[in-house]
Protein backbone atom coordinates (compact mmCIF):
# COMPACT_ATOMS: atom_id res chain seq x y z
CA UNK A 1 0.00 0.00 0.00
CA UNK A 2 2.89 2.36 0.86
CA UNK A 3 6.54 1.69 0.16
CA UNK A 4 9.70 3.71 0.78
CA UNK A 5 13.01 2.54 -0.65
CA UNK A 6 16.38 3.98 0.39
CA UNK A 7 15.15 7.56 0.81
CA UNK A 8 17.89 10.18 1.00
CA UNK A 9 17.34 13.92 1.28
CA UNK A 10 19.45 16.79 2.59
CA UNK A 11 18.86 20.48 3.18
CA UNK A 12 22.26 22.15 2.63
CA UNK A 13 24.58 20.22 4.96
CA UNK A 14 21.77 18.77 7.10
CA UNK A 15 20.82 15.17 6.31
CA UNK A 16 17.05 14.95 6.81
CA UNK A 17 16.67 11.42 5.41
CA UNK A 18 19.54 8.99 5.38
CA UNK A 19 18.58 5.76 3.65
CA UNK A 20 15.11 5.06 5.04
CA UNK A 21 13.25 1.98 3.74
CA UNK A 22 9.99 0.53 4.99
CA UNK A 23 6.53 -0.47 3.84
CA UNK A 24 3.05 -0.17 5.32
CA UNK A 25 0.32 -2.74 4.60
CA UNK A 26 -3.47 -2.24 4.58
CA UNK A 27 -4.80 -1.98 8.12
CA UNK A 28 -1.38 -1.08 9.53
CA UNK A 29 -0.81 2.06 11.61
CA UNK A 30 2.82 3.07 11.90
CA UNK A 31 3.67 5.58 14.63
CA UNK A 32 7.03 7.32 14.16
CA UNK A 33 8.56 9.05 17.17
CA UNK A 34 11.58 11.28 17.06
CA UNK A 35 13.07 14.48 18.48
CA UNK A 36 12.88 17.81 16.65
CA UNK A 37 15.00 17.79 13.50
CA UNK A 38 14.98 13.99 13.21
CA UNK A 39 13.50 14.24 9.70
CA UNK A 40 9.93 13.11 10.49
CA UNK A 41 8.14 15.91 8.62
CA UNK A 42 10.50 15.58 5.64
CA UNK A 43 9.74 11.85 5.53
CA UNK A 44 5.97 12.50 5.48
CA UNK A 45 6.38 15.16 2.78
CA UNK A 46 8.40 12.75 0.66
CA UNK A 47 5.76 10.03 1.12
CA UNK A 48 3.06 12.56 0.11
CA UNK A 49 5.02 13.60 -2.96
CA UNK A 50 5.43 17.19 -1.73
CA UNK A 51 9.23 16.78 -1.73
CA UNK A 52 11.10 14.77 -4.36
CA UNK A 53 13.83 12.76 -2.58
CA UNK A 54 17.38 13.27 -3.83
CA UNK A 55 17.81 9.48 -3.88
CA UNK A 56 15.41 6.61 -3.43
CA UNK A 57 11.77 6.20 -4.18
CA UNK A 58 8.42 6.44 -2.38
CA UNK A 59 5.26 4.86 -3.71
CA UNK A 60 1.65 4.98 -2.55
CA UNK A 61 -0.88 2.72 -4.28
CA UNK A 62 -3.47 4.95 -5.94
CA UNK A 63 -1.18 8.01 -6.07
CA UNK A 64 -2.16 11.43 -4.74
CA UNK A 65 -5.88 10.62 -4.80
CA UNK A 66 -5.27 7.92 -2.16
CA UNK A 67 -3.51 10.23 0.32
CA UNK A 68 -5.04 12.20 3.18
CA UNK A 69 -2.62 14.62 4.81
CA UNK A 70 -2.57 16.58 8.05
CA UNK A 71 0.46 18.83 8.29
CA UNK A 72 1.67 21.37 10.85
CA UNK A 73 -0.76 23.90 9.35
CA UNK A 74 -4.49 23.39 8.79
CA UNK A 75 -4.44 24.03 5.01
CA UNK A 76 -7.71 25.95 5.24
CA UNK A 77 -8.75 29.38 3.98
CA UNK A 78 -9.49 31.81 6.79
CA UNK A 79 -12.10 33.82 4.85
CA UNK A 80 -14.20 30.75 3.99
CA UNK A 81 -16.56 28.94 6.33
CA UNK A 82 -15.94 25.38 7.50
CA UNK A 83 -18.52 24.07 5.02
CA UNK A 84 -17.09 26.12 2.11
CA UNK A 85 -13.58 24.88 2.88
CA UNK A 86 -14.67 21.23 2.92
CA UNK A 87 -16.72 21.72 -0.26
CA UNK A 88 -13.68 23.25 -2.00
CA UNK A 89 -11.32 20.42 -1.03
CA UNK A 90 -13.93 17.76 -1.86
CA UNK A 91 -14.47 19.23 -5.32
CA UNK A 92 -10.74 18.94 -6.07
CA UNK A 93 -11.13 15.19 -5.42
CA UNK A 94 -14.39 15.06 -7.43
CA UNK A 95 -16.41 13.94 -4.40
CA UNK A 96 -19.16 15.49 -2.27
CA UNK A 97 -18.16 16.24 1.32
CA UNK A 98 -19.70 13.48 3.44
CA UNK A 99 -22.29 15.12 5.70
CA UNK A 100 -21.68 12.81 8.63
CA UNK A 101 -18.02 13.87 8.84
CA UNK A 102 -18.96 17.18 10.47
CA UNK A 103 -21.13 15.39 13.00
CA UNK A 104 -18.46 12.78 13.78
CA UNK A 105 -15.96 15.54 14.53
CA UNK A 106 -18.44 17.67 16.48
CA UNK A 107 -18.34 20.45 13.89
CA UNK A 108 -22.02 20.66 12.89
CA UNK A 109 -22.73 23.81 14.88
CA UNK A 110 -19.59 25.47 13.49
CA UNK A 111 -20.25 24.60 9.83
CA UNK A 112 -21.20 28.15 8.81
CA UNK A 113 -18.51 29.93 10.82
CA UNK A 114 -15.50 31.37 8.99
CA UNK A 115 -12.36 29.41 9.75
CA UNK A 116 -10.58 32.55 11.06
CA UNK A 117 -13.07 32.65 13.96
CA UNK A 118 -12.28 29.12 15.18
CA UNK A 119 -10.12 28.19 18.15
CA UNK A 120 -6.90 26.19 17.63
CA UNK A 121 -8.61 22.95 18.63
CA UNK A 122 -11.59 23.48 16.32
CA UNK A 123 -9.24 24.43 13.49
CA UNK A 124 -7.40 21.14 13.96
CA UNK A 125 -10.70 19.24 13.86
CA UNK A 126 -11.58 20.93 10.54
CA UNK A 127 -8.10 20.04 9.26
CA UNK A 128 -8.84 16.40 10.16
CA UNK A 129 -12.19 16.61 8.33
CA UNK A 130 -10.38 18.08 5.30
CA UNK A 131 -7.90 15.20 5.29
CA UNK A 132 -10.71 12.63 5.48
CA UNK A 133 -13.08 14.33 3.01
CA UNK A 134 -12.23 11.97 0.13
CA UNK A 135 -12.03 8.83 2.28
CA UNK A 136 -8.31 8.28 1.58
CA UNK A 137 -6.68 4.85 1.59
CA UNK A 138 -3.53 6.20 3.27
CA UNK A 139 -3.42 8.83 6.00
CA UNK A 140 -0.21 10.77 6.63
CA UNK A 141 -0.45 12.65 9.91
CA UNK A 142 2.07 15.13 11.28
CA UNK A 143 1.43 15.82 14.98
CA UNK A 144 -2.35 15.38 14.58
CA UNK A 145 -3.07 15.77 18.31
CA UNK A 146 -1.73 19.34 18.46
CA UNK A 147 -4.32 21.67 19.97
CA UNK A 148 -6.93 18.97 20.54
CA UNK A 149 -8.66 18.68 23.90
CA UNK A 150 -9.13 15.23 25.45
CA UNK A 151 -12.56 14.66 23.84
CA UNK A 152 -11.36 15.66 20.38
CA UNK A 153 -8.23 13.52 20.78
CA UNK A 154 -10.42 10.55 21.69
CA UNK A 155 -12.63 11.24 18.65
CA UNK A 156 -9.55 11.34 16.41
CA UNK A 157 -8.38 8.08 17.98
CA UNK A 158 -11.74 6.45 17.19
CA UNK A 159 -11.67 7.76 13.59
CA UNK A 160 -8.17 6.39 13.08
CA UNK A 161 -9.17 3.02 14.57
CA UNK A 162 -12.14 2.87 12.14
CA UNK A 163 -9.82 3.85 9.31
CA UNK A 164 -7.46 0.97 10.15
CA UNK A 165 -10.35 -1.47 10.67
CA UNK A 166 -11.53 -0.65 7.13
CA UNK A 167 -8.18 -1.96 5.82
CA UNK A 168 -6.60 1.44 5.33
CA UNK A 169 -3.09 2.50 6.30
CA UNK A 170 -1.84 5.31 8.52
CA UNK A 171 1.59 6.80 9.09
CA UNK A 172 1.64 9.08 12.08
CA UNK A 173 4.53 11.17 13.39
CA UNK A 174 4.24 12.66 16.84
CA UNK A 175 6.08 13.59 20.02
CA UNK A 176 3.17 12.25 22.03
CA UNK A 177 4.31 8.68 22.80
CA UNK A 178 1.20 7.92 24.89
CA UNK A 179 -1.39 8.82 22.24
CA UNK A 180 0.73 7.61 19.32
CA UNK A 181 1.41 4.20 20.85
CA UNK A 182 -2.26 3.66 21.66
CA UNK A 183 -3.13 3.79 17.95
CA UNK A 184 -0.11 2.03 16.49
CA UNK A 185 0.25 -1.50 15.18
CA UNK A 186 3.94 -0.74 14.48
CA UNK A 187 6.37 1.67 16.09
CA UNK A 188 9.49 3.37 14.71
CA UNK A 189 12.01 5.68 16.38
CA UNK A 190 13.77 8.18 14.17
CA UNK A 191 17.04 10.02 14.78
CA UNK A 192 19.17 12.08 12.38
CA UNK A 193 17.28 10.90 9.30
CA UNK A 194 17.41 7.17 10.15
CA UNK A 195 15.15 4.63 11.79
CA UNK A 196 16.96 3.40 14.89
CA UNK A 197 14.07 1.09 15.75
CA UNK A 198 11.21 -0.35 13.67
CA UNK A 199 9.09 -3.18 15.03
CA UNK A 200 5.51 -4.28 15.60
CA UNK A 201 4.12 -2.87 18.84
CA UNK A 202 3.32 -6.44 19.92
CA UNK A 203 1.46 -5.62 23.11
CA UNK A 204 3.92 -3.05 24.39
CA UNK A 205 2.22 -0.25 26.30
CA UNK A 206 2.97 3.49 26.11
CA UNK A 207 5.20 3.34 29.18
CA UNK A 208 7.41 0.59 27.76
CA UNK A 209 7.54 2.22 24.31
CA UNK A 210 8.36 5.58 25.94
CA UNK A 211 11.23 4.01 27.90
CA UNK A 212 12.61 2.24 24.82
CA UNK A 213 12.31 5.50 22.85
CA UNK A 214 14.28 7.50 25.42
CA UNK A 215 17.00 4.83 25.46
CA UNK A 216 17.12 4.64 21.64
CA UNK A 217 17.53 8.36 21.00
CA UNK A 218 19.78 9.08 23.97
Amino acid at each position, binding site marked *: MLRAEELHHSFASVRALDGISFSVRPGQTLAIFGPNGAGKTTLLKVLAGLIRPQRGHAHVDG*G*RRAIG*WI*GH*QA*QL*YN*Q*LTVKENLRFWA*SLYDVHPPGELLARLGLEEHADRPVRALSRGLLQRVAIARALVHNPAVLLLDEPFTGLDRTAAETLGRLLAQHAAAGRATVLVTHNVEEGTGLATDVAFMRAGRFVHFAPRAGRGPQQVGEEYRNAIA
Partner: protein
Amino acid sequence: MRLPEVVRHSWTVASKDLLIEFRSRTAIVSAAMFVILVLLVFTFARDPTAVAAVDLAPSILWVTLTFAAVLALNRAFQLELENQALDGLLLAPIGRSSIYLGKLLANLVFVGTVELIGVPLLALFFNVTVWPYAAPLALVIVLATIGFVSVGTLFSAMTVRTRVSELLLAVLVLPFMIPPLMWASRATGPLLAGRPLSDIIGWLKMLAAYDIVFVGLALLLFPATVNE
Protein backbone atom coordinates in the same frame (compact mmCIF):
# COMPACT_ATOMS: atom_id res chain seq x y z
CA MET B 1 -5.46 14.98 -17.31
CA ARG B 2 -8.40 15.49 -19.70
CA LEU B 3 -9.56 18.93 -20.83
CA PRO B 4 -12.98 18.93 -19.05
CA GLU B 5 -11.21 18.04 -15.78
CA VAL B 6 -8.65 20.81 -16.27
CA VAL B 7 -11.46 23.31 -16.94
CA ARG B 8 -13.51 22.14 -13.95
CA HIS B 9 -10.58 22.18 -11.53
CA SER B 10 -9.35 25.55 -12.83
CA TRP B 11 -12.79 27.01 -12.25
CA THR B 12 -12.89 25.50 -8.73
CA VAL B 13 -9.58 27.22 -7.87
CA ALA B 14 -10.62 30.50 -9.51
CA SER B 15 -14.07 30.63 -7.90
CA LYS B 16 -12.50 29.99 -4.47
CA ASP B 17 -10.06 32.89 -5.01
CA LEU B 18 -12.87 35.16 -6.21
CA LEU B 19 -15.07 34.27 -3.22
CA ILE B 20 -12.18 35.04 -0.84
CA GLU B 21 -11.52 38.35 -2.60
CA PHE B 22 -15.23 39.18 -2.56
CA ARG B 23 -15.22 38.64 1.23
CA SER B 24 -12.00 40.53 1.99
CA ARG B 25 -11.86 43.02 -0.94
CA THR B 26 -8.22 43.75 -0.06
CA ALA B 27 -6.63 43.47 -3.51
CA ILE B 28 -9.46 45.11 -5.47
CA VAL B 29 -9.87 48.05 -3.11
CA SER B 30 -6.14 48.81 -2.89
CA ALA B 31 -5.67 48.51 -6.68
CA ALA B 32 -8.77 50.61 -7.42
CA MET B 33 -7.68 53.31 -4.96
CA PHE B 34 -4.26 53.31 -6.58
CA VAL B 35 -5.81 53.80 -10.05
CA ILE B 36 -8.02 56.67 -8.87
CA LEU B 37 -5.17 58.45 -7.08
CA VAL B 38 -2.66 58.08 -9.94
CA LEU B 39 -5.15 59.32 -12.54
CA LEU B 40 -6.01 62.27 -10.29
CA VAL B 41 -2.32 63.15 -9.85
CA PHE B 42 -1.71 62.98 -13.62
CA THR B 43 -4.82 65.08 -14.27
CA PHE B 44 -3.63 67.92 -12.05
CA ALA B 45 0.05 67.59 -12.92
CA ARG B 46 -0.23 67.77 -16.71
CA ASP B 47 -0.10 70.98 -18.70
CA PRO B 48 -3.05 70.81 -21.16
CA THR B 49 -1.43 73.39 -23.43
CA ALA B 50 1.79 71.39 -23.88
CA VAL B 51 0.54 67.95 -24.99
CA ALA B 52 -2.94 67.04 -26.19
CA ALA B 53 -4.85 64.78 -23.80
CA VAL B 54 -5.47 62.23 -26.54
CA ASP B 55 -1.69 61.84 -27.05
CA LEU B 56 -0.97 61.53 -23.36
CA ALA B 57 -3.90 59.32 -22.32
CA PRO B 58 -2.69 55.95 -23.74
CA SER B 59 0.64 55.97 -21.88
CA ILE B 60 -0.96 57.16 -18.64
CA LEU B 61 -3.66 54.52 -18.91
CA TRP B 62 -1.19 51.66 -19.37
CA VAL B 63 1.32 52.83 -16.77
CA THR B 64 -1.50 53.13 -14.23
CA LEU B 65 -3.05 49.76 -15.07
CA THR B 66 0.34 48.02 -14.96
CA PHE B 67 1.22 49.11 -11.46
CA ALA B 68 -2.32 48.47 -10.25
CA ALA B 69 -2.09 44.95 -11.69
CA VAL B 70 1.20 44.28 -9.88
CA LEU B 71 -0.53 45.22 -6.61
CA ALA B 72 -3.34 42.74 -7.31
CA LEU B 73 -1.09 39.97 -8.65
CA ASN B 74 0.94 39.74 -5.48
CA ARG B 75 -2.11 38.50 -3.60
CA ALA B 76 -2.69 35.54 -5.93
CA PHE B 77 -0.44 33.11 -4.07
CA GLN B 78 -0.22 34.97 -0.74
CA LEU B 79 -3.57 33.54 0.27
CA GLU B 80 -2.26 30.02 -0.40
CA LEU B 81 0.35 30.56 2.32
CA GLU B 82 -2.35 31.10 4.95
CA ASN B 83 -2.36 27.83 6.89
CA GLN B 84 -0.08 26.39 4.16
CA ALA B 85 -3.04 25.67 1.87
CA LEU B 86 -0.60 25.44 -1.05
CA ASP B 87 0.56 22.01 0.22
CA GLY B 88 -3.04 20.80 0.07
CA LEU B 89 -3.43 22.12 -3.49
CA LEU B 90 -0.21 20.44 -4.60
CA LEU B 91 -1.28 17.17 -2.98
CA ALA B 92 -4.74 17.19 -4.59
CA PRO B 93 -5.13 14.97 -7.67
CA ILE B 94 -5.32 17.92 -10.05
CA GLY B 95 -2.79 19.00 -12.64
CA ARG B 96 -0.43 21.87 -11.82
CA SER B 97 -1.83 23.48 -14.99
CA SER B 98 -5.29 23.60 -13.34
CA ILE B 99 -3.82 25.53 -10.40
CA TYR B 100 -2.06 27.97 -12.76
CA LEU B 101 -5.10 28.44 -15.00
CA GLY B 102 -7.37 28.93 -11.98
CA LYS B 103 -5.05 31.60 -10.58
CA LEU B 104 -4.75 33.21 -14.03
CA LEU B 105 -8.52 33.33 -14.41
CA ALA B 106 -9.04 34.89 -10.98
CA ASN B 107 -6.27 37.43 -11.65
CA LEU B 108 -7.84 38.34 -15.00
CA VAL B 109 -11.13 39.05 -13.20
CA PHE B 110 -9.32 41.19 -10.55
CA VAL B 111 -7.35 43.17 -13.11
CA GLY B 112 -10.38 43.39 -15.44
CA THR B 113 -12.39 44.92 -12.60
CA VAL B 114 -9.64 47.48 -11.97
CA GLU B 115 -9.61 48.27 -15.71
CA LEU B 116 -13.39 48.71 -15.70
CA ILE B 117 -12.87 51.39 -13.06
CA GLY B 118 -9.76 52.92 -14.69
CA VAL B 119 -10.91 53.38 -18.31
CA PRO B 120 -14.07 55.45 -17.59
CA LEU B 121 -12.10 57.54 -15.09
CA LEU B 122 -9.43 58.20 -17.72
CA ALA B 123 -12.13 59.28 -20.17
CA LEU B 124 -13.62 61.55 -17.52
CA PHE B 125 -10.41 63.12 -16.18
CA PHE B 126 -8.70 63.57 -19.57
CA ASN B 127 -11.85 64.41 -21.49
CA VAL B 128 -11.14 61.80 -24.19
CA THR B 129 -13.87 59.96 -26.07
CA VAL B 130 -13.76 56.19 -25.66
CA TRP B 131 -17.35 54.99 -26.24
CA PRO B 132 -17.31 55.04 -30.09
CA TYR B 133 -14.17 52.86 -29.95
CA ALA B 134 -15.24 50.74 -26.98
CA ALA B 135 -15.16 47.38 -28.81
CA PRO B 136 -11.67 47.67 -30.39
CA LEU B 137 -10.34 49.28 -27.20
CA ALA B 138 -11.76 46.35 -25.20
CA LEU B 139 -9.96 43.96 -27.57
CA VAL B 140 -6.64 45.76 -27.01
CA ILE B 141 -7.17 45.75 -23.25
CA VAL B 142 -8.15 42.05 -23.17
CA LEU B 143 -5.14 40.96 -25.26
CA ALA B 144 -2.65 43.08 -23.30
CA THR B 145 -4.12 42.03 -19.96
CA ILE B 146 -3.90 38.31 -20.77
CA GLY B 147 -0.25 38.84 -21.68
CA PHE B 148 0.98 40.63 -18.61
CA VAL B 149 -1.28 38.78 -16.16
CA SER B 150 -0.08 35.40 -17.48
CA VAL B 151 3.53 36.40 -16.79
CA GLY B 152 2.61 38.08 -13.50
CA THR B 153 0.79 34.99 -12.24
CA LEU B 154 3.83 32.82 -12.93
CA PHE B 155 6.20 35.23 -11.16
CA SER B 156 3.76 35.60 -8.28
CA ALA B 157 4.06 31.82 -7.69
CA MET B 158 7.82 32.05 -8.01
CA THR B 159 8.31 34.87 -5.51
CA VAL B 160 5.62 34.17 -2.94
CA ARG B 161 7.85 32.10 -0.62
CA THR B 162 10.57 34.79 -0.53
CA ARG B 163 10.80 37.38 2.24
CA VAL B 164 10.58 40.35 -0.14
CA SER B 165 7.93 38.92 -2.47
CA GLU B 166 6.20 42.23 -3.26
CA LEU B 167 9.43 43.97 -4.28
CA LEU B 168 10.78 40.93 -6.12
CA LEU B 169 7.56 40.43 -8.08
CA ALA B 170 7.67 44.00 -9.39
CA VAL B 171 11.40 43.78 -10.24
CA LEU B 172 11.01 40.47 -12.09
CA VAL B 173 7.72 41.04 -13.87
CA LEU B 174 8.05 44.63 -15.09
CA PRO B 175 10.70 43.89 -17.77
CA PHE B 176 8.43 41.17 -19.18
CA MET B 177 5.49 43.57 -19.17
CA ILE B 178 7.25 46.14 -21.33
CA PRO B 179 6.49 44.56 -24.76
CA PRO B 180 2.72 44.10 -24.30
CA LEU B 181 2.39 47.49 -22.64
CA MET B 182 4.33 49.20 -25.41
CA TRP B 183 2.21 47.51 -28.08
CA ALA B 184 -1.03 48.20 -26.17
CA SER B 185 -0.08 51.83 -25.77
CA ARG B 186 0.78 52.08 -29.50
CA ALA B 187 -2.59 50.52 -30.36
CA THR B 188 -4.61 52.64 -27.94
CA GLY B 189 -3.28 55.96 -29.29
CA PRO B 190 -4.65 55.61 -32.86
CA LEU B 191 -7.95 54.24 -31.51
CA LEU B 192 -8.51 57.27 -29.26
CA ALA B 193 -7.56 59.53 -32.20
CA GLY B 194 -10.42 57.97 -34.19
CA ARG B 195 -8.33 55.92 -36.64
CA PRO B 196 -9.79 52.68 -38.08
CA LEU B 197 -9.13 49.25 -36.62
CA SER B 198 -7.04 48.29 -39.64
CA ASP B 199 -4.37 50.77 -38.44
CA ILE B 200 -3.69 48.72 -35.32
CA ILE B 201 -4.03 45.16 -36.66
CA GLY B 202 -0.24 44.71 -36.49
CA TRP B 203 -0.16 45.57 -32.77
CA LEU B 204 -3.11 43.28 -32.08
CA LYS B 205 -1.30 40.39 -33.80
CA MET B 206 1.82 41.07 -31.73
CA LEU B 207 -0.27 41.07 -28.53
CA ALA B 208 -2.02 37.82 -29.52
CA ALA B 209 1.33 36.17 -30.31
CA TYR B 210 2.74 37.30 -26.93
CA ASP B 211 -0.31 35.82 -25.18
CA ILE B 212 0.05 32.46 -26.90
CA VAL B 213 3.80 32.23 -26.26
CA PHE B 214 3.71 33.35 -22.62
CA VAL B 215 0.60 31.44 -21.53
CA GLY B 216 2.21 28.33 -23.07
CA LEU B 217 5.58 29.02 -21.42
CA ALA B 218 3.94 29.74 -18.07
CA LEU B 219 2.03 26.43 -18.23
CA LEU B 220 5.32 24.62 -18.90
CA LEU B 221 7.30 26.41 -16.19
CA PHE B 222 4.65 26.63 -13.45
CA PRO B 223 5.18 23.10 -12.02
CA ALA B 224 8.88 23.87 -11.44
CA THR B 225 8.01 27.06 -9.53
CA VAL B 226 5.71 25.39 -7.01
CA ASN B 227 7.50 22.08 -6.43
CA GLU B 228 9.79 22.10 -3.38
